[in-house]
């Protein structure tokens, strides 16, 4: 063995020894830090077993593998918001709406979105509702052999689900549930003021950027409660010795800043037609020439709103129920915020059982 080889081994040994000592010291003296993942991406999210069933442009359709020997007849398709990643509904074992529904015997599919490429900036609301959501619905029906399904939309996913249901009143949507779904842009005061300002030019933004970056979306969401993230970091410091809290916090935090870019054309429609002209609540929105009239929706309908939702405040979603034409329609307002409603520690006691009850009698 040469002197240089000996020196290399010695250096490696020394490095390993320092690392071991440090790890041991941290693990022994600061229990809360020991289980911290090295990076945010080390966190395991989305643990439920799933298979990719269909993909189309920015849409990915997953099927969650059933764990029960007998399942409800009608499949459930969860539609995520085009700006948010789907793993918020499947954060970790025991903290997953998906896992819960699968355990209750529902056949669950999820439409998740991915960020658009630069050559996909032309994708519009028409493409999202008619082509991509429509394509996923066809794929679910083909995969299950059923001729109807239940749509469950989260946030903007609820908007897309309502639009699809209003355009396809003869089926195949059997039931429609929406969580914290905005319909009236006048209720989103801050966004409304920013976007109606003469100096805000969405056309220029789209022309320059093509797609609206995820960071831009993230910043605009955080501006609604500018100090919330700082407060959450303080909560983390105050609970650093609580392993479960730290892991849950990191998972939420990762998701909160993990926003998807939005295709330029979709952003343009959302700003002009939804935010500025407020066409959705007035049943004046058109997709490929057909008017989206929510009054045409006659299937059983459920809307779940969060009491302390600062992203979609009550004023933005309260018109949904009156506008829907169904006889069988309900709204539940629960404690919690926009995200904690579906994925917080209390969701398992509040929202999930109510959703299961609502679905189970309608999914047979």
């Amino acid at each position: 063995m040469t002197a240089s080889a000996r020196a290399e081994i010695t250096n490696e040994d020394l490095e390993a020894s320092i690392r071991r000592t440090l790890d041991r010291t941290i693990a022994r003296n600061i229990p809360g830090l020991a289980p911290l993942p090295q990076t945010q991406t080390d966190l395991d999210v989305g643990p439920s077993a799933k298979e990719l069933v269909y993909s189309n442009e920015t849409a990915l359709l997953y099927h969650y593998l059933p764990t029960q020997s007998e399942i409800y007849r009608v499949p459930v398709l969860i539609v995520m918001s085009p700006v948010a990643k789907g793993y918020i509904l499947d954060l970790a074992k025991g903290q997953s709406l998906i896992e819960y529904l699968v355990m209750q015997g529902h056949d669950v599919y999820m439409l998740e979105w991915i960020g658009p490429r630069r050559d996909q900036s032309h994708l519009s609301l028409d493409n999202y509702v008619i082509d991509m959501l429509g394509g996923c619905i066809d794929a679910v029906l083909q995969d299950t052999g059923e001729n109807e399904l239940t749509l469950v939309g989260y946030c903007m996913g609820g908007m897309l689900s309502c639009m699809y249901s209003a355009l396809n009143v003869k089926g195949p949507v059997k039931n429609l549930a929406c969580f914290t779904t905005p319909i009236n842009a006048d209720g989103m005061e801050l966004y409304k003021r920013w976007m109606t300002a003469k100096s805000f030019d969405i056309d220029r933004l789209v022309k320059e950027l093509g797609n609206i970056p995820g960071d831009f979306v993230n910043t605009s969401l955080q501006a609604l409660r500018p100090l919330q993230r700082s407060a959450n970091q303080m909560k983390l410091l105050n609970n650093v010795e609580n392993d479960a809290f730290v892991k849950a916090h990191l998972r939420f935090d990762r998701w909160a800043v993990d926003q998807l870019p939005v295709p330029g054309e979709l952003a343009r429609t959302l700003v002009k037609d939804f935010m500025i002209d407020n066409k959705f609540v007035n049943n004046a929105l058109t997709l490929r020439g057909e008017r989206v009239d929510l009054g045409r929706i006659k299937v059983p309908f459920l809307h779940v709103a969060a009491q302390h939702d600062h992203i979609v405040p009550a004023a933005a979603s309260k018109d949904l129920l009156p506008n829907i034409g169904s006889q069988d329609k309900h709204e539940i307002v629960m404690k919690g915020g926009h995200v904690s409603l579906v994925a917080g520690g209390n969701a398992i006691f509040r929202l999930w059982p109510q959703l299961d009850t609502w679905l189970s009698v309608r999914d047979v």
Partner: protein
Amino acid sequence: MASEDSFDPIRLWREWFVKSEKSLSDALSEMMGNEHFSKGMGRYTLEALHTHRMFSETMGQHLANLNIPSRSDILDTNDRLAHMEETLNRIQVELREQRSQIARITVLAGSAKPGDNAARPARTRKPANNLDT
């Protein structure tokens, strides 16, 4: 680390901040909602776009001279990766379809055993009788 009952002014400040965050955020949001701020933000966005474009054009040339990839090069790579992912997704979907067809044939031939993927769960589940809808 300070124990729960020891006096820790930083911890107390953090707790106060967490409790006051909602009202502080509301006050800030209200300030951001006024007409001047909205106008200013719109102008700032447009100026930022303009600066971004000028900077990208200027820096692009410098980075090329230094043989360092620019943001545009990274976006090109990102797009190529996205195309590859799309192709992989199609292959994944195709493979699943093939597996499902084999499973259907196995079920029809009666050779599927309990626990096999071939045997999909029956879609006959009924809700419990005492559910309040």
